[in-house]
């Protein structure tokens, strides 16, 4: 068997990488700050007694712009990766993606309704529009997932194969509705819609961060409690039942956590693909499939990877900014193909 990395080594490495990503994410951007200034300003921000002369500008950029953006990236990446683990466990397939249960397409539909519908109504105040967008995306994601879950149920049992097919159908249906809104939208609205669909960590603010952080904390605390049950589920549903796992409850929790987590992430940052698919995969390659390691490691790796992707998005065409969904897909899709070929051989 291929040698696995010990969990302790893995966690230390991931924690260091994560700190590095946070540091770079705080320092780099249109106004690049010297790394040491960033460190000092960062330490002052969390209340450590560091001498602060000459740091006013750094502290302001950090506090107002870079810190909320960095936290947003960490939270979104972490919850997308956790949801990926949950879905790959639910479908017992390492190539499953959080989008499978329809949450992403539901959120996209909600966002399209908010953006295009809002422009027709005309009267949405500018300060309220982002909140309306997030709310509609969140509700849309949760709603479509609930429908997919309902469609997969029969006689008190959830059939994941039916759910998978229902998810595909609902995704297509959602896509056509979004397409219709796109067709009906005017040019300015179209631009907003397109950029939202590509995802961005731009415009992060503390007010929009808190709900997401709460959701991420809830999912991140809940899923690891079910790590052993997820391990058993990989054997098969009846095998897990014979090992004493309440499988129906577990499936419900996994779908709910994913809908909540991805819904909140998409609501805050738009559609960001491939993190949920690729991160659990990478961690499994390095550390094996045991969910007691996989879940916390994916949480760290997901946040870290998304911060690095955001750095590329910010720096590649600076001072302009790429939508982050383009970056994750550009890296993620070839990686996915690589996995497909490797799994087959």
């Amino acid at each position: 068997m291929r040698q696995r990395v010990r969990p302790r080594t893995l966690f230390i490495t991931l924690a260091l990488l994560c700190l590095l990503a946070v540091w770079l994410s705080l320092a780099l951007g249109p106004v690049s700050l010297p790394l040491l200034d960033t460190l000092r300003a960062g330490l002052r921000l969390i209340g450590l007694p560091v001498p602060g002369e000459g740091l006013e500008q750094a502290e302001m950029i950090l506090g107002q712009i870079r810190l909320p953006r960095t936290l947003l990236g960490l939270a979104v990446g972490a919850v997308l990766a956790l949801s990926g683990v949950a879905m790959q466990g639910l479908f017992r397939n390492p190539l499953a993606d959080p989008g499978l249960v329809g949450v992403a397409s539901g959120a996209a539909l909600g966002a399209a309704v908010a953006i295009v519908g809002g422009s027709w109504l005309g009267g949405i105040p500018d300060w309220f529009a982002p909140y309306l967008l997030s709310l509609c995306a969140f509700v849309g994601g949760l709603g479509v997932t609930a429908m997919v879950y309902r469609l997969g149920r029969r006689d008190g049992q959830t059939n994941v194969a039916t759910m998978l097919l229902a998810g595909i159908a609902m995704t297509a249906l959602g896509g056509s509705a979004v397409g219709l809104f796109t067709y009906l939208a005017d040019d300015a609205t179209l631009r907003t819609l397109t950029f939202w669909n590509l995802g961005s960590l731009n415009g992060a603010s503390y007010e929009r961060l808190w709900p997401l952080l709460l959701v991420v904390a809830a999912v991140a605390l809940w899923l690891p409690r079910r790590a052993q049950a997820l391990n058993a589920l990989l054997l098969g549903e009846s095998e897990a039942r014979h090992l004493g796992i309440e499988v129906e409850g577990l499936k419900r929790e996994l779908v709910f956590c994913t809908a909540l987590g991805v819904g909140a992430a998409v609501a805050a940052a738009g559609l960001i693909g491939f993190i949920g698919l690729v991160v659990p995969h990478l961690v499994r390659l390095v550390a094996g499939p045991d969910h007691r390691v996989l879940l916390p490691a994916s949480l760290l790796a997901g946040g870290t990877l998304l911060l690095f992707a955001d750095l590329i998005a910010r720096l590649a065409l600076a001072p302009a900014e790429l939508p982050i969904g383009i970056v994750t897909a550009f890296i993620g899709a070839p990686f996915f193909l690589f996995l497909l070929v490797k799994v087959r051989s």
Partner: protein
Amino acid sequence: MLDVQGLSLKRGGSQVLHDINLTLRPGQVLGVLGPNGAGKSSLLGALCGELAPSTGQVRLDGRGLEGWSGQERARRLAVLPQVSSLGFAFSVEEVVGLGRLPHASGRQRDREIVEAALAAADAGHLVERSYLALSGGERQRVHLARVLAQLWPGEPGTTLLLDEPTSALDPLHQHTTLQAVRSFADRGAAVLVILHDLNLAARYCDHILLLEQGRCHALDTPQQVLTPAALRAVFGIDVLVQPHPERGHPLIITR
């Protein structure tokens, strides 16, 4: 101990089991034989609670199956399905370790039990391997070790249900597997095992249930059940039955 009286079962509108009565007793191995589609796996499904019977209640240690919590039940009743699909690269040790989930016996004890169960299934040498790199027969033995670990050491009060545990095994491992099952029963476990090989059943089972189109054709000792007349009636094969020259159990020879 597992017990059911008057068990009937419908699947997809057709009656697949009719009025089955059986009791799995501590220390005994009951073999279930019958042609394809006779209802063997449906019987196992009903006995472990996967399929809801239309009549008859399955009782584990005197209490209906649904009256047990999942974990309590898993400490007494283990099930080995015909095929398991595990597509993730767990090590063999981890797969067998999953059998210890219903218990809180501690890491050290669990490790000893995993080792003992793997040895019983003659799979001790696979412990470090990745499950995905194993052959079909090796995987089958690893899953056997997993269910043995779940009930280890097989005390009275534990019940083991096995669906064709030897289907992918070479001749030697057919015997080592059933020997492991036999010694599990000798320590007090009640065992039901679905088999296709009549001679393996004759050698290792205390009782045999012969199923025909969902009905019990016979339920008795191998000597009583495995007769040329019964085997012709149920399987449509012509056989000679002679006592095994060394061990005395019936030896079935196709003519």
